[in-house]
Each structure stands twice: as structure tokens, then as C-alpha cells.
């Protein structure tokens, strides 16, 4: 650019390449400003992607082992009375028959080490050691496998535990508990699997009911929103504009927001979700239907009328074949969309699988959450495939 200014200007300058033109450079500068501001305002922080990875690791790990199948679990549990205060004697527990749990001492101050041995337990099973405080809250202190004879040995550190509401001598009387756990019998669907199945069915039906409500309302409304039918006189024209405005406003309100309104109105649960999806879908379907009616080919209507057919016959053989297959296709597509949306609607209390997915996530039950996520994925993919097949067949 600077050279241009110094050099004598030729009478007929060759056109500069487009990437040197002032307009383009200005455009480039503008883009740079926009993206620089965008980067800043959205607080993009790429290192955090690496640094924060450890927080999602448990969830990702559990995603590949969802809680679907399980075996019946059996446990053995034995407790030993302990005291953390040399001045206080441990409780006097009745000696249990069966497996035996022993500790190197029964009086151990907080922070001291205690040898734990067990015998007579189930061989090759997982043994978990808990420290139990006076009000019965367990706290895991160790984990070990039993050997082939059903014995195990471990060293634990006595933890600082809550001593109960009154800090008397009773508070020093605590317990050590071992729980040996193993599974028996064949694999069977887990409780989570049953709950998720029930909720995913609820979700599909939630979407179905919402879509049905929408179809019932949208079919008549779509005729009022069809330009070719309505704009023949001023009354019709105003009805057309009112209908179209309603469609546009309702379509622009996210079903999520409608769901919040309806959970306040009719309470938490799937009914609120049905209403939210229904209302949103009326507008979405109404618009699609109207556009289909507007694109009807008048030719076949003229041709069938010319054969001497009555009005009913003309509708049946020239109008219906032109609108019903696309209506069916749009409706199934909407149902498919609604299944996906009802997942999110569950997050705000609109029922369906989103409701329990959110609970599982909040309780950090990631394996259960994974089951729900996989169920959603499978159902959405299946609905997507189904609706594509139906659309291909009918349209």
C-alpha cells in the first residue's frame, strides 16, 4: 500500500487482486473485531477443557457401563464394638455365630492404626470395612478381598467420627463393621432398567399425547392459516393474519418455557409436559399444514370436477390425496421431535425420562444416569429412522 503512494500512478492501473481491495480489508478488520469481542465475551478458555477433564471422567467412565443388568446380591455383615477413649469401655455386643471379625485392640484413639482380621466369610468376595459412629452413620475405612478360605486381614486408621448429640462417654463407643458382598444367580434387568423403561415409555406417550392434541387443533387452524383459501375477502384476510401471527408467536416460545408455566399451572408431572409440547406443536404443525394447503395443485380438482363428480368426491379424490400423506409425514416428524424435546422438558418437571435423568445426575448416580442416556439415544434413533421410513413411503 505504501509503495502505491510513492510510485507514480500509472494512467491505467491494473485492477488489484480482490484480497488487496480496500473493501475486503475493511471487511477483514470488521470480522477480526467481531470475533475478538466474541472470544472475550463468551469467556472462551481452552486450557480449562484439559484441566476440567478430571471432573467429567467418572461420568464418561460410567457411560460405558450403564446400570442395566445385575445379579442378586448377598451380604454378610459383622460388627465389633470399639472405643476411641481409653476411659470408656466399648459396648458389650453379643457374640455372633458364624463369621468372626477381630481387631488387634478394641480401644483405639483417633488416628491410631488397628489390625483387622476376619475368618469364616464367603471366599473370594469383596469385603468393605466401615467405621460406624454412635448414631449409626457408616464411613468407609477400607476395602479388601477375602481369600479362598474366606479370611482376610487389613489395617485401618481410626477416623475422626461424629460423637453423637451429647458429648458424653457414650460418644466414644463406636463400632467397626465389615460387609462382605457377592452376587448369585443369573443376570437380570436391574431396578434402574425397569424404572428407565417405564419412564422412556412415559416419554414416548407424553410426546404422542402432545402431538395428538396438536393435530386435533392444528388441522382446522391450518385451513384458517392458508393464504389461498382465506385471502378472498377482508374478513378472511384478517382471520388469516391472526392465525399466522398466533402460529409465529407460539412457535417462537420454547417448549421449555411453556413447561415451566404449565408445571406451575397443573403441577409437576407428565401432564404439564403434554400441555407444553401440545401448545408448541399446534403452532409448528399448523404452519407446516397451512403451507401444504397453500401448495395444493388446482389442476386435479378441476379435472375431477369436470368428470361430473360431486363436491364430496372431489375433496376425497383430488384434495385429500394431496394433503393427507404430507400431513401424516409432518405429524410423525413432529412426534419424533417431541420425544427429543420431552427429555429436556423433564428437567424442569414436565415428566418423562428427563425427570429421573436429572435426579440421577444430582445424586451422582452416573451408572443409572448412563442407563437413561442410552435409553434416550436408542429411542430417539429408532423414532428418527421410523419417521424417515414413513416419510419416504408417503410423500
Amino acid at each position, binding site marked *: 500500500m505504501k509503495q502505491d503512494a510513492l510510485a507514480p500512478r500509472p494512467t491505467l492501473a491494473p485492477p488489484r487482486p480482490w484480497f488487496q481491495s480496500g473493501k475486503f480489508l475493511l471487511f477483514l478488520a470488521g470480522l477480526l473485531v467481531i470475533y475478538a469481542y466474541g472470544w472475550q465475551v463468551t469467556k472462551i478458555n481452552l486450557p480449562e477443557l484439559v484441566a476440567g477433564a478430571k471432573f467429567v471422567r467418572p461420568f464418561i467412565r460410567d457411560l460405558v457401563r450403564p446400570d442395566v443388568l445385575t445379579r442378586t446380591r448377598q451380604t454378610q455383615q459383622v460388627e465389633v464394638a470399639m472405643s476411641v477413649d481409653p476411659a470408656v469401655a466399648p459396648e458389650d455386643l453379643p457374640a455372633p455365630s458364624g463369621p468372626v471379625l477381630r481387631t488387634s485392640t478394641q480401644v483405639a484413639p483417633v488416628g491410631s492404626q488397628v489390625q483387622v482380621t476376619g475368618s469364616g466369610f464367603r471366599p473370594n468376595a469383596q469385603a468393605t470395612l466401615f467405621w460406624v459412629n454412635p448414631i449409626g452413620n457408616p464411613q468407609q475405612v477400607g476395602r479388601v478381598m477375602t481369600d479362598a478360605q474366606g479370611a482376610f486381614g487389613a489395617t485401618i486408621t481410626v477416623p475422626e467420627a461424629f460423637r453423637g448429640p451429647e458429648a458424653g462417654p457414650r460418644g466414644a463407643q463406636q463400632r467397626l463393621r465389615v460387609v462382605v458382598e457377592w452376587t448369585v444367580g443369573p443376570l437380570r434387568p436391574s431396578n434402574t432398567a425397569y424404572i428407565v423403561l417405564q419412564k422412556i415409555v412415559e416419554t414416548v406417550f407424553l410426546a404422542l399425547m402432545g402431538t395428538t392434541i396438536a393435530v386435533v387443533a392444528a388441522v382446522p387452524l391450518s385451513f384458517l392459516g392458508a393464504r389461498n383459501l382465506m385471502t378472498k375477502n377482508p374478513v378472511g384476510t384478517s382471520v388469516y393474519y391472526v392465525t399466522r401471527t398466533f402460529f409465529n408467536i407460539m412457535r417462537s416460545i420454547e417448549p421449555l418455557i411453556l413447561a415451566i408455566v404449565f408445571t406451575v399451572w397443573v403441577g409437576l408431572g407428565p401432564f404439564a409436559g403434554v400441555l407444553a409440547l401440545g401448545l408448541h406443536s399446534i403452532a409448528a404443525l399448523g404452519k407446516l399444514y397451512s403451507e401444504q394447503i397453500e401448495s395444493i*395443485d388446482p*389442476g*386435479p380438482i*378441476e*379435472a*375431477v*370436477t*369436470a*368428470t*361430473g*363428480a*360431486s363436491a*364430496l*368426491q372431489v375433496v*376425497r*379424490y*383430488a384434495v385429500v*390425496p*394431496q394433503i393427507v*400423506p404430507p400431513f401424516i409425514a409432518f405429524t410423525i416428524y413432529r412426534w419424533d421431535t417431541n420425544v427429543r424435546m420431552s427429555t429436556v422438558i423433564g428437567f424442569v418437571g414436565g415428566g418423562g425420562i428427563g425427570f429421573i435423568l436429572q435426579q440421577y445426575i444430582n445424586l451422582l448416580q452416573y451408572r443409572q444416569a448412563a442407563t437413561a442416556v442410552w435409553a434416550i439415544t436408542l429411542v430417539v434413533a429408532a423414532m428418527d429412522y421410523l419417521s424417515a421410513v414413513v416419510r419416504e413411503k408417503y410423500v
Partner: protein
Amino acid sequence: MRGAALRLEHVAKTYPDGTRALRDISFAVRPGEFVVIIGLSGSGKSTLMRCINRLIEPTAGRIYIDDVDITALSHEEMRRLRRSIGMIFQQFNLVRRSTVLTNVLSGRLGYLPPSFALMNYFPKDEVARAMANLNRVGIPEKARTRADQLSGGQQQRVGIARALMQEPTLLLADEPVASLDPATSHSVLKYVEELNKKDGVTVLCALHFLSLARRYGTRILALKGGEIVFDGLPAEIDERRFKEIYGEEAEEVEIA
């Protein structure tokens, strides 16, 4: 089957926007004639066709079919009369998503009780009649195909089969080959000609190409600006008449 006689007396049509599509049209057609109507786009050919089966209501004049004044008929009487007037169209006007068979059967609706339509029911003998008509236009194997899967020529043959279902005495053909290539045009017009020669159906056919008009017509009517400017035998259209109808700049193009 015998063709219908047609007579128009001072028929005029003015559209609500003021366009005068037809002005004072009078002519008579004897049973069994093959009348070709020629004229530029916008000369009133389509409006004339549609006035004859009252898809468009003429604003003035009388139209007689076999000495019945159809302009005086009620809607229901007109509907019955339409059953004997077949019509084929430039754009074929088939229901694209329906099967060929359903499209052909829809030509018979005027003869069937409307209640059948609610159950999409057609009697067996009507289905057989439809198959026979598809056979006649040479595409019986397409009966179960969707109409939009067919080529243009095949679609127009479905249109003819649909008109055949009406057992018409008069056939209105509104530029039936304007969307088709020359070879296909002949194959379609041959079916129309056969209908005229074999069954004696009176044919009123709008065509664009003079060569086709000369080849198939027994009589030619020329429209210009909504008026008849020529009514005579195909052989009578010479250079001078041609320029009268189509304007000074027109050149006659041949169609093979």
C-alpha cells in the same frame, strides 16, 4: 356411442378484473366432428373450453349440447351432464400421489354414489372397466404405479383413460400435447383420433401447431382476441390466413 352436437350462440366471458376473454362467439359442431381450435396464447381457447362444461360460467350467450341449453341448468343438472363431457388438459391434471388406477377410476365418480367415496370403494366392474381403458391406451402394466412416476406421454394417456371412463359423447382437449415432445404428441393424438373415428365422439381440441391441426382436424376454428377469425377446412389456411391469426411476424414451424 354417438357424438354430441354442440351449438354456441353469442357466448361472451368477461373476468371480474375486466379482461374480455371471449366476445360474441357463435358456432355449431355436428356430431362426430374433430374440431381443432388454434390461436395465440391468451386468445381465449382455454376459456372457451371451460365455458362448454361450465367450469367457467359464461357471462352472456347460450350453449346447447344436443339441443339442451346448458347455461340454464342447475348445478346438480350440470354435474350430471358433465359425466358425458370428457376433458383432457395440457398439464394432465392427475393426482400425482395417487396410483394410475385410482386416477382412471376417478373419471367414473359421477356415476357412483358419493357414499362410496368415504370408504374409497369402487365396484368390481368399474375396476375392470378402468383396466380395459388402461389397456386401450396401452399402459395396463402401470395400473399400480404412482402417477408421478410416469413419463409425460404416459400421464396424458392416463388422462385419456380417465376421460374414457365417462363414456363421453364430447371430448374437450385443452392443448393436450403442448407439454410433450413431437413423437409423443402423435402417439397421444392418435388415441384422441381413434376415439373420434371409432367411437364417433365429437372432439374439440386446442392445438398450438398448425401442422398437427392440419393432420388431425376435420375443421379448424381460429380465435384471436376472444373472437373467431377463421372457421373452415384445414386446407383453407394459407399464408395470408396464417398471418391473420398469428400476427405479421409469425413464421410457421413444422412439427414432424
